[in-house]
């Protein structure tokens, strides 16, 4: 079996915000879709299939894809709905890739959306934990990441100051991205460190916001991709690895991110990556908390284990550094969960296509994107200007 070369040729996002009171969730998803298709003048009848991702329990709509048939433009088409926790946006992109690479479909629309203001996100996330052993002590995303960050600090020696620098970098990068939720041009490290603890060691400004937003991509096959985009973002790797359900079964979860390491090993092998720090020109990684970016860089092999703090201290992942990480502002600047990981992939694609606007990194030829969520699950994609041989 041989994969048909496939590439992302268009992306679209909403302006992410705390509360989109002007639109319903369906209208919000459609906003991103219209921008995506409009970017290339595509019509719905040119789309062969739709892949959708959303966290149903956040807004409490069961089979939301069926309710949103019209908004998704999926009437009369194959509609795949994925549910893989916070990873789901990247899982959508991975599914778009495989459905095109299989030769079955030529052009696929991938959509991720979340309207957190319509529901109760942390109450829903709490149900991920085991009802007897985990919910009482690690309820919701903040409790989980606080536990993980504590472990990471202990193992790596990273400091609250270094994490705060990540938080500042993300928010300043976001000021160049018109779709980012948070625009905080005056943010300082001191402000981050002085913001209240949500759960030690996580300060409020170390954590991502809760956002309403949507993202869409179009994945197309070989000649179709070349027709639609001047510089398609070709998929060179699409890898997934999921960790065990119970946090206690994968100790030191943020310090040793087994699923990230496994997905990186698979994806780098697929794409021929041997030196991630030098082989990638930009990375969009899924960091719901400041500490996560540092730990993820270590586990992705961007630096040595324990070297995350050094990366930020030396400015290596800044916009003007050798490997900019999250020029979009990352998850720390916008987190509409069902869309978030797809935004990572879309932003990586924009960088490869040379269409990222004010947050474009010069000369990008190869980009890394990751999705992370659920019970430490990882999706990883490598995008490139070079068409796969």
């Amino acid at each position, binding site marked *: *079996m*041989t994969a048909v070369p496939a590439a992302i040729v268009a992306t679209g996002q909403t302006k992410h915000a705390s509360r989109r009171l002007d639109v319903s969730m369906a209208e919000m998803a459609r906003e991103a879709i219209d921008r995506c298709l409009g970017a290339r003048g595509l019509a719905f009848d040119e789309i062969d299939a739709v892949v959708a991702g959303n966290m149903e329990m956040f807004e409490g*709509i069961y089979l939301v894809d069926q309710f949103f*048939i*019209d908004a998704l433009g999926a009437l009369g088409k194959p*509609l795949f709905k994925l549910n893989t926790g916070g990873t789901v946006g990247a899982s959508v992109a991975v599914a778009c890739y495989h459905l095109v690479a299989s030769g079955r479909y030529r052009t696929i629309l991938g959509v991720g959306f979340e309207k957190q203001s319509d529901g109760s996100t942390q109450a829903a996330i709490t149900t991920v934990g085991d009802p007897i052993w985990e919910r009482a002590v690690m309820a919701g995303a903040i409790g989980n990441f606080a536990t993980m960050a504590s472990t990471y600090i202990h193992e790596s020696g990273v400091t609250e100051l270094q994490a705060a620098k990540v938080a500042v970098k993300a928010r300043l990068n976001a000021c160049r991205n018109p779709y980012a939720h948070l625009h905080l041009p005056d943010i300082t490290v001191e402000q981050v460190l002085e913001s209240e603890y949500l759960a030690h060691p996580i300060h409020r400004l170390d954590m991502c916001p809760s956002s309403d937003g949507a993202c869409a991509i179009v994945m197309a096959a070989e000649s179709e991709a070349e027709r639609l985009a001047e510089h398609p973002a070709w998929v060179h790797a699409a890898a997934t690895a999921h960790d*065990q*359900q119970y946090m206690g079964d994968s100790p030191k979860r943020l310090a040793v991110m087994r699923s990230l390491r496994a997905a990186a090993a698979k994806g780098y092998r697929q794409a021929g990556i041997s030196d991630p720090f030098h082989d990638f020109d930009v990375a969009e990684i899924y960091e719901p908390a400041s500490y996560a970016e540092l730990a993820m860089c270590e586990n992705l092999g961007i630096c040595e284990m324990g070297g995350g703090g050094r990366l930020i201290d030396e400015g290596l992942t800044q916009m003007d550094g050798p490997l900019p990480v999250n020029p979009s502002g990352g998850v720390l600047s916008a987190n509409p969960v069902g869309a978030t990981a797809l935004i990572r992939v879309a932003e990586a694609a924009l960088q490869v296509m040379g269409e990222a606007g004010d947050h474009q990194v010069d000369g990008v030829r190869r980009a890394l994107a990751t999705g992370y969520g659920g019970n430490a699950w990882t999706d990883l994609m490598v995008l490139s200007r070079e068409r796969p041989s």
Partner: protein
Amino acid sequence: MAVNEVAGGTLGSEAKVAADGVMALLYAIARVQDGDQHLNLVVAHSKESQADPHGIELAGFDPYYERALDPDDTVAAGLQAGLYYARSGLGPADAARVVAAARARSEVLDDVTVEDVLASAPTCDPLRELDRAPRMDAATALVICDESTMRARDRSGVRLVGGAARAGAWWTARDLARADEARDAADEALALEGWEPSSLTRIEINAPFAFQQLLIGEALGLGDGESLVRRLAGGDGTAGRVNADGGWLAGSATSVAGLAACGHAVAELRDRGGRALIHGATGICAQSHAIALLEGVA
């Protein structure tokens, strides 16, 4: 997530498709066709006894305009059944024959008669309790692989030919008495392989209500009126048996039924050869439809 470990998914590549298991199968086929995987485990599971089915189904309705009426899938299906019976000329007694035939083929549920169905408790007119598949805890799993892997393991297998899917309109925005998307999906799947409908030796229709199986069967070209009922309820002696193991009405569950039907078909196709069309439905009033085609390799 809940089955990651028991499915052997730890540090492996896993995705969850939220629909009938046939949709998961179609995604799994793509993962094998593009060379990403040689072997793929497809699992469908549902533990309906652990949930509040009414509450979950209620959450599937429009939160702005419909939920205040406290509907669930049975309420919507009652309206659909009325429309279908009015259009088709069929009625509760015909659906009851389908239920009785399914239960007679069931390995896990007791037999019921047509009279039992017609005398069971009314739910939403014209439906009665036994018109709907009972709530079940169920899981099923299939392993699919590429041809080289099958040859290397020296196993005569069943060729998973392909499939197609079509999403239908929201239940208040379409003609509930028809299932055009099921027909379109089947037509596309068959046309892709150049199969004539008459070449099918087994057809599995999966929807939770007996009348929906008649409705979808009609859309799939299995006849109409009495001939359609005979195809689904057995006894007409024609080739292309329908729901040979009873299907969802014989004991299955949401998300599981279509994939379980694939498993049942595999067992037969491996032994006897033949061609099977497996249907799975998702959503209120069987909104969206997926089709998989399987062929026994002699």
